[in-house]
């Protein structure tokens, strides 16, 4: 069978196709069809010839096979130092082999490549920091995922994710109406307790345009309410766009570069339409990576920068704590030992480590660093889409062991994780390994600790006073 009904080389562009794929429970038919999917070897080789340029070519060629990348990889460590988990081996035996064979690879080989690209690498980019030649295998796996996607060898959930972005401009089926309704609902819900609280939609020339992760309107609407409370407390002039509010990119995890461009353009359009001074993105790692770090390149912005200055949520929090726009009640600081998860996507890959430390200095009395930390921290274990792919659940759970041990070594029972993916992974590791920890985003903790100015006090409290 050249191409299947569900598993094929065409990206999902319509609701009908998306629903057909969603209705195929756990991708049963999808993966069955994948076993028969032909490799379009000519197209594969043509794509490689066009896109494999000197950086990647050189990386593939000059690798000295020294093995210094091995201990950099958390999956290598989590799998008892299995040599097949050495980053260089993983990329040489997949992308390296495709290039050596000039694209002449078969179905079975491509399925092995898919398994390697999504279950043996989270594109955390740590190996690149440990290679003497600066060979970044995370970057190469990103490229390889693109090749897999173009050939239809992509995990079911990733194909759905890419389709979601193409159809809804969001990683989940949240329409503009759903989004606006959720914002209004949250403004009403929290407005009762916080007089004057608003979630302004499509306000032009605001100081801040706030953008989120679709999981928030879909599953955690209180997160939007909490963001609103904190903007309200800090006295910010802010808004959310009705369209172009989604920062994440499962298309990036899927290797769907066209989908990535479509998604990020919707956010840039919102910036250009509403002309805010700055943008703030919620506590999500890959959202920031996609829209702020990589997005400008997907859309061909020569400056490598989005249309307006962009801040990750941790940069904004550090700023309002530094300037005193948001004050922490010293009596309410976190007293117990607390540790912090550094998200690869905005720490290693965007350099924001100092901002999170600044925040910790304001809110925690006994902050304990994981080892290693900052740019050298290990992936949570669920990055790059790993959390979301059902057929690699066992591999993902093994991968969580490194983070589990890092957390245990700190002695902290509370883990602050300003990243959706890390937050999920840490929640899952507690569920599986039961080490007795709690985990949290910054927002709920900050609301607990903030000093509320008199005029903004919740009504009941004000009346009591």
């Amino acid at each position, binding site marked *: 069978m050249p191409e299947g009904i569900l598993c094929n080389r065409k990206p999902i562009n319509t609701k009908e196709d998306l629903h057909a794929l969603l209705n195929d429970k756990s991708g049963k038919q999808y993966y069955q069809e994948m076993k028969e999917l032909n490799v379009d070897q000519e197209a594969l080789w043509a794509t490689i010839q066009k*896109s494999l*340029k*000197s*950086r990647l*070519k*050189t*990386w593939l*060629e*000059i*690798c*000295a*096979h*020294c*093995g*210094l990348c*091995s*201990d*950099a990889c958390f999956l*290598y460590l989590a799998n008892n*130092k299995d*040599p*097949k988990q*050495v980053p*260089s*081996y993983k990329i*040489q035996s997949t992308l390296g082999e495709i290039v050596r064979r000039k694209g002449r690879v078969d179905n079975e080989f491509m399925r092995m490549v898919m398994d390697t690209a999504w279950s043996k690498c989270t594109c955390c980019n740590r190996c*690149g*920091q*440990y*290679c*003497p*030649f*600066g*060979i*970044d295998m995370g970057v190469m796996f990103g490229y390889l995922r693109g090749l897999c996607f173009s050939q239809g060898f992509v995990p079911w959930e990733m194909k759905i994710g890419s389709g979601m972005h193409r159809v809804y401009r969001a990683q989940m089926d949240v329409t503009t109406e759903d989004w606006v309704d959720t914002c209004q609902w949250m403004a009403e819900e929290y407005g009762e307790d916080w007089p004057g609280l608003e979630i302004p939609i499509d306000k032009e020339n605001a100081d801040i345009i706030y953008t989120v992760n679709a999981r928030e309107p879909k599953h955690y609407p209180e997160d939007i309410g909490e963001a609103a409370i904190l903007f309200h407390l800090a006295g910010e002039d802010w808004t959310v766009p009705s369209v172009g509010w989604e920062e994440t990119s499962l298309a990036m995890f899927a290797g769907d570069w066209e989908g990535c461009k479509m998604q990020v353009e919707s956010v840039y359009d919102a910036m250009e339409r509403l002309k805010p001074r700055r943008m703030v993105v919620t506590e999500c790692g890959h959202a920031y990576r996609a829209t702020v*770090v*990589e997005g*400008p*390149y*997907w859309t*061909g912005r*020569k*400056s*490598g920068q989005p249309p307006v200055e962009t801040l990750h949520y941790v940069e904004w929090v550090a700023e309002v704590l530094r300037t005193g726009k948001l004050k922490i009640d010293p009596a309410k600081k976190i007293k117990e030992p607390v540790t912090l998860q550094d998200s690869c996507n905005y720490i*290693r*890959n*965007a*350099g*924001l*480590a*100092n901002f999170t430390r600044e925040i910790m200095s304001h809110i925690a009395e006994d902050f304990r660093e994981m080892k290693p930390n*900052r*740019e*050298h921290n290990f992936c949570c274990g669920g990055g790059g889409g790993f959390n979301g792919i059902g057929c690699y659940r066992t591999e993902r759970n093994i991968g969580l062991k490194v983070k589990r041990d890092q957390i245990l070594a700190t002695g902290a029972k509370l883990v602050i994780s300003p990243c959706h993916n890390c937050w999920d992974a840490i929640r899952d590791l507690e569920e599986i390994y039961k080490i007795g920890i709690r985990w949290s985003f910054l927002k709920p903790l900050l609301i607990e600790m903030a000093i509320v100015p008199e005029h903004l006090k919740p009504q009941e409290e004000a009346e009591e006073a």
Partner: protein
Amino acid sequence: MYAFVTGPLAWLAFGIFFIGLIVRAVWYIRGLDWRADRVAYTEHFGAGMKGAFRSILHWIVPFGSHSWRFYPGMTILFFVFHFCLLFTPIFLGAHNMLLMERWGFSLPAISDTTGDLLTVILLVAAVFLILRRIALPEVRILTTAYDYLLLAITVAPFVTGFLAFHHVGDYHFWLITHILSGELWLIAVPFTKLSHALLFFLSRAQLGMDYGIKRGGMKGRGLAW
């Protein structure tokens, strides 16, 4: 024979070595693509250069990077091997005598004993590199015959030079073999992964620019190494 290998063949070998490396550098730089690599090389050239410089510096200094510090044994082995490899042939007394004869100038020369010592150290380091490839599973899985071939090409001039200098067996035979193996190495550099002699710097500079421009350098964090 001697006249031929130290004459036209030497010219050819050095020519291929230098021109080959220049061509590789030009290819590499021309093949960089700001959009495909997702690094705004020219727009933020200053930040990029700063990142490139740091990236090379941290790795060219022993124990200068996290990775070097993580693997102290390999680091010592690596630096000893490369130091002997580059230093010995350039400052060897016999080579500088030749340079004086042919070109009328020479570099400061090391004593013959030092030359001998450095050669032996290099050979010992090479043996350890081989043992490491065999002993460590994470290195064994990556190793191919090609890796051993390149190591052989690299140490051959040292072995033959040592034998010639100490007149072990037929001096003339070892001398010619020494020169030929040196020329083989020169020719191999641009065509094999020995090209890392140059591409190490370019590749490090590239990732340094990536970190310097995109991954934190412009946010004030340049400490990725």
